[in-house]
């Protein structure tokens, strides 16, 4: 057991070299790598923390925006509901107005149609009644209806009161006109002229003979101050009044 000082010196130098080599190839790189990793991880942790804070801030922003949107949405919904309600009321009012207009129009049309129908009915009835009366009169008395009417008209003329005769003659005989449903024959015209002379002996009777435009049954003596007439429409007007009463009663029962 001896100490070889040459070996000691060599080992001493070897140790120093080894220390330098390991410092160069082991300790420094490893320590630097660990330090760098630690710095990187610390930087990552800081970055992550910053991102977390940023994310939380953004989340807060989004929450605030959501709250604002919710408020805005509620306001919009309220306004929309109000607008819809207003629009509904407006449309309903408009619909009611239109309904009222249509209803009035319908009632008007109904009344018009009723009137037309009644007119047609009256015309038809008058035609039928006239034809029936004419036939019945002819069968019973072998006399024309117009002739019978004419005779009756002459009787009424003869039966005029003094006042009516004054009115009839006041305007002058030149303005008189006799309108009939058919054109009168010569004999009838002569009989009428004779009758007028008897009634108004002091007047120069000049009567114009005309035909009624609607060829209805009737006789009308017109002067500017007085009118004597017999028209079958009078009867029909009464008949129409009674029919109206009956129809209105039936309609009120139906409603």
């Amino acid at each position: 057991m001896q100490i070889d000082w040459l070996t000691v010196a060599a080992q001493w130098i070897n140790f120093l070299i080894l220390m330098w080599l390991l410092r160069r190839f082991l300790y420094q790189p490893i320590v630097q790598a660990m330090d760098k990793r630690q710095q990187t991880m610390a930087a990552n942790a800081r970055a992550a923390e910053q991102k977390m804070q940023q994310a939380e801030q953004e989340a807060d922003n989004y929450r605030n925006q959501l709250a604002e949107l919710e408020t805005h949405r509620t306001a919009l919904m309220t306004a929309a509901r109000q607008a819809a309600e207003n629009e509904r009321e407006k449309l309903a009012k408009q619909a009611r107005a239109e309904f009222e207009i249509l209803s009035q129009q319908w009632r008007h049309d109904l009344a018009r149609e009723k009137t037309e129908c009644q007119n047609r009915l009256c015309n038809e009835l008058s035609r039928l009644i006239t034809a029936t009366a004419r036939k019945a009169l002819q069968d019973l008395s072998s006399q024309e209806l117009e002739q019978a009417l004419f005779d009756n008209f002459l009787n009424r003329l003869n039966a005029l009161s003094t006042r009516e005769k004054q009115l009839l003659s006041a305007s002058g005989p030149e303005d008189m006109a006799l309108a009939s449903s058919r054109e009168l024959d010569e004999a009838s015209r002569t009989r009428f002229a004779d009758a007028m002379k008897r009634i108004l002996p002091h007047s120069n009777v000049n009567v114009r003979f005309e035909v009624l435009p609607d060829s209805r049954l009737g006789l009308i003596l017109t002067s500017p101050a007085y009118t004597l007439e017999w028209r079958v429409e009078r009867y029909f007007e009464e008949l129409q009044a009674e029919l109206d009463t009956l129809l209105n009663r039936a309609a009120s029962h139906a409603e």
Partner: protein
Amino acid sequence: MTLSPDDHILGWIGPLPINATIAYTWLVMAILVTCSYLVTRRLNDSVRISRWQNLLEILVSGLSEQIRQTSRQEPGPYLPFVGTLFLFIATANLLAVVPGFSPPTASLSCTTALALAVLAAVPLFGIAQRGLLAYLGEYIKPSVFMLPFNIIGELSRTLALAVRLYGNMMSGSVIGIILLGIVPLFFPILLQFLGLITGLVQAYIFAVLAMVFIASAQAARNDRTPNPGD
């Protein structure tokens, strides 16, 4: 029976004899430096690292932590010295199980060289930390009469370092050889494994003691440093 590898001359470089201690020291150095170079040439400072880099990082961080616990100081300046002591002794001791390998730490010359390195490092670190006069002043404390005892203390602990490592490693080898003669089967293998543990423990003891000596040389200054918490 050759007890010291110093006596085993392998060759000559000029007039200098290359004995087994120096040769195997070079082998250990080559292994350590090559392994370190191969691993650290492709270092990765990201989270995903190779297993060898992981191993070296565990080793270096373990050494640093040990130095920090022992000296209560930052390990940066002491890591190359103390770490190299541990790695060299541990590698040499572990390679003792390889047949034909003669650990250089079984040579008193080698352990003496390492102890002398510690002997030189203690004042160097002390002076570097505290200054020459302040360090030398420690030798005459608490009295100038303590100067011889302090010097003897320095030398004796250096001697103790060298002889402790040498004795353990040499005895391990010698016991192994003797047991081969007495019980040739199985038992020497167990003893070899025991030798591995002993080798690691000796490397740890040597490195930690070196650190303790270095740290103790600076303890006085640290004791006088006012605590920032006070």
